[in-house]
């Protein structure tokens, strides 16, 4: 999923005062969303929202499946916009990448690279410049600090020989994904930074924020008993519900918001829902088949507030096979999320009922495992104030000027959206800034 953040996201903390504000706004990143979308290819509609900015570079959106049409119409009747999905799948030839052939096996790696992945889309072209050297099976343990207060290199271990090696560099860019980047930073201890490189603020490791989510399934009566279609499409859902709770002027007793994803609508390679239908025998078999083409699903995602006590630490943890401390995660949600979740359940049930769907039994308030969205953020956050953030708005460390952190850990807040497109755009912006700083001789 390739969703642009909006000023509803970037401006959220400045507006409600929870934790530090983002150091950037939409206008700062918009040109980089453009660049990323042109590079990787993102399909989507022109049905933009204030919470989901559009793009003139979208490739054609994927046609909606039957069940998606019903949910979109049902949401509309509830006053909620459900738009075309924006997804990094090329729906027509783009930058030398073949278009999607709708086989539905995206999750296993696309044979023709019609689905964005860093190997085909980023590393390949980078290697062609002749300026990239990839050292694989190198497990980075620490970033080394020089006497001049700058990062001087990286200590890593060969995955197979377990041999320790060091590679030197004048500028170091860390992008090991939120959790592992944080571990590397915290393990990079020195006399100057006893709690990890660049951590004079003490914020690195804290403010881990993911997202809360659950799943609701139902069956649309109009589709029951119809012939199953090939519903593979571009793999995931072809619709998305952008955040809307900021619009109706209603005063809410929680901060931030939620949206919804819709994967798993229509004919799936299995029928797990059958476990929630009673009975057995021929009647049961008929009941399962009747519902098969009619399956609809909602997966609301809500923002989790950054909190100091939600954190990653490496103190007193077991060592890994290279002798480097592993990490520990402490994480929980609070009242804010619980209140939002109650509204998310009402919303999802409302949309399902508006679609006249037979809803599969659910337990109100049930949440999928923390971390299951795999959208970790916040543990090396960017901000204006070096006492409360680790990075500036260009992903550059306040403390260590030649060290950049370019993954989800740099995010000030989580939002309810999938972060990859924003990670890419921020990384590109950060790299432009670095190039400019190098030209000026600053780094």
């Amino acid at each position, binding site marked *: 999923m390739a969703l642009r953040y909006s000023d509803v996201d970037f401006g959220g903390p400045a507006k409600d005062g929870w934790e530090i504000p983002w150091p950037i706004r939409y206008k700062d990143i918009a040109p980089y969303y453009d660049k990323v979308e042109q590079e990787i290819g993102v399909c989507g509609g022109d049905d933009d929202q204030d919470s989901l900015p559009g793009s003139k570079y979208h490739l054609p959106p*994927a*046609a*909606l*499946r*039957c069940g*998606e*049409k*019903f*949910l979109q*119409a*049902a949401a509309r009747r509830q006053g909620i916009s459900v738009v075309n999905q924006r997804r990094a799948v090329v729906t027509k030839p783009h930058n030398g990448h073949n278009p*999607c*052939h*709708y*086989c*539905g*096996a*995206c*999750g*296993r790696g696309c044979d023709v690279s019609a689905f964005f992945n860093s190997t085909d889309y980023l590393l390949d072209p980078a290697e062609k410049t002749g300026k990239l050297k990839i050292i694989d099976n190198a497990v980075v343990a620490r970033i080394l600090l020089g006497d001049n207060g700058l990062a001087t290199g990286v200590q890593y271990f060969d995955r197979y020989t377990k041999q320790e090696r060091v590679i030197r560099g004048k500028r170091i860019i860390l992008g090991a994904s939120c959790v592992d980047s944080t571990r590397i930073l915290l393990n990079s201890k020195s006399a100057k930074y006893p709690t990890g490189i660049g951590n004079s603020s003490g914020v690195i490791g804290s403010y881990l924020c993911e997202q809360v989510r659950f*799943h609701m399934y139902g069956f649309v009566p*109009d*589709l029951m008993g119809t012939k*199953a279609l*090939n*519903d*593979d*499409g*571009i*793999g*995931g*859902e*072809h619709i998305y519900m952008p955040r809307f709770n900021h619009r109706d002027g209603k005063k809410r007793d929680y901060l931030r918001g939620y949206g919804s994803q819709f*994967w*798993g609508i229509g*004919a*799936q*390679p*299995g*029928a*797990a*829902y*059958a*476990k*929630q239908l009673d009975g*057995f*025998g*021929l009647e*049961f*078999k008929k009941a*399962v*088949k009747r519902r*098969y*083409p009619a399956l609809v699903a909602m997966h609301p995602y809500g923002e989790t507030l950054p909190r100091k006590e939600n954190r990653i630490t490496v103190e007193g943890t077991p060592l890994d096979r290279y002798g480097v401390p592993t990490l520990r995660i402490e994480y929980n949600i609070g009242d804010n999320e619980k209140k939002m979740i109650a509204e998310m359940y009402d919303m999802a049930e409302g949309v399902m009922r508006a679609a006249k769907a037979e809803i*599969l039994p*659910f*337990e109100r308030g049930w949440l*999928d495992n923390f971390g*299951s969205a*795999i959208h970790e953020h916040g543990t090396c956050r960017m901000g204006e104030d070096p006492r409360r953030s680790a990075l500036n708005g260009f992903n550059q460390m306040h403390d260590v000027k030649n060290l950049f952190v370019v993954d989800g850990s740099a995010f000030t807040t989580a939002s309810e959206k999938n972060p990859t497109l924003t990670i890419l755009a921020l990384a590109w912006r950060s790299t432009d800034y670095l190039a400019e700083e190098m030209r000026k001789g600053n780094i």
Partner: protein
Amino acid sequence: MIQAQGHAEHGLTQIEKAAPKVARFFNKQEMALLAQLVEQIIPRSDTPGAADANVHYFVDFQAHTNPKLGAQLKKDLAWVRKQGFAKADAAGQVALLTGWSQAKGTAPYRVFKQIKDLTIDGYYGSKEGLTQELGWNANTFLREFKGCTHPEHGA
């Protein structure tokens, strides 16, 4: 709750896990009983039933790869046998299953539900269940994805 499908994962996981037609965990007697059970849960109609689709071998493979599940199922099958299931006629088997399936919250229901859930995984993940019974015809190559072509849908 339906098992959360991860990040829009999509694929033929259950088919891939389809068991070889050699019992690895249960003995002959247990396999015969299991075949009767899965066939009563999803019987043959104008499409194959669970035993036709070798779902009992699928269950055997699950037991083989998960010792805790295997030990539990061994006990459960012994209990099912004690109820006279193997020797009962079709009507008798249905009567027994009906009783267990309606006794929610009891031990017999747990036995029934576990075998039923495994039958569902195995059958609707098998070629017979997925393509012949449900009519799934995806995971193929298309020039164009037309999506819903019914103007009345979602109107």
